């Protein structure tokens, strides 16, 4: 954690400095919202609601932050728990993600026109924890240790998730555009 961020946190804790907390929000909002948008498969409203709830919870629980991990890691952990809660409550309503891609792939195995779009669709077929592991390690550049902290799982489990996710991605993307 850099000194500027540590100073902002101290100001919030000691003086309940709202400007300092606003600075913390500004520092992390872009990364957190982008992370949640990817997990929410582009549902910007849901992602922003979750991000807002995460910041609010972070504000309430800031005194519990011990500085053992980076503030970003701690914040992302809160956001990920929020995301899992929302997933549980919406599970009945959620369409099986990736079914559309699998169906499309079986019906028209044409070469992909847009690799990034393919990747987005392929990522959507992964289990939420696999997506999260990939997003944290590749998207946010967190170390395996930090990502495992965010997800609340052992490092070994995280590495397995990443390995499995990448194997599935390779399979899906190769099947989607086998000759290119």
């Amino acid at each position, binding site marked *: 954690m850099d000194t500027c961020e540590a100073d902002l946190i101290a100001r919030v804790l000691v003086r309940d400095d709202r400007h300092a907390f606003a600075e913390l929000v500004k520092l992390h909002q872009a990364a957190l919202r982008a992370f949640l948008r990817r997990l929410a498969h582009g549902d910007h409203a849901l992602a922003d609601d979750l991000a807002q709830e995460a910041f609010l919870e972070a504000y309430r629980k800031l005194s519990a932050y011990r500085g053992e991990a980076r503030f970003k890691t701690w914040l992302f952990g809160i956001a990920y728990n929020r995301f899992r809660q929302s997933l549980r409550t919406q599970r009945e309503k959620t369409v099986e993600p990736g079914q559309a891609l699998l169906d499309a792939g079986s019906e028209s195995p044409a070469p992909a026109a847009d690799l990034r779009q393919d990747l987005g669709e392929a*990522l959507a077929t992964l289990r939420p924890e696999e997506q999260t592991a990939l997003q944290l390690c590749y998207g946010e550049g967190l170390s395996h240790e930090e990502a495992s902290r965010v997800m609340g799982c052992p490092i070994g489990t995280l590495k397995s998730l990443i390995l499995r996710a990448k194997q599935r991605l390779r399979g899906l993307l190769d099947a989607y555009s086998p000759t290119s």
Partner: protein
Amino acid sequence: MNLDDDEKLNRLLRDDAQEYVDDAGFTARVMDTLPASRHPARRRAGLVVGATALSLVLVATFGRAALGSLVVLCSRLFEISIPVAGTPVPLAAFVLCALGCVLAVWSVRGEFRA
């Protein structure tokens, strides 16, 4: 596309995540949802500490005799009767100061636990 090359897939994943999300009022919305100040006692503590400091300055500056005269002057101004002779004004001021300090410490004590 052949993604056997692990580095190729890694690069693809990293590039895919390069999305910039503009604030667009998000920070303001978060700040609007924050609960009311969680340290209302801080303002009270500030007043107590301020009053205590003022008392100390008065006592140190004017001393017993001068402060006694001030009390007499005030009592004459407001036409009230105060038994000035032998009134332990500095002692009372110090007692008030001590009480103020105790109240100030009590009201902010929870903030330094974390």
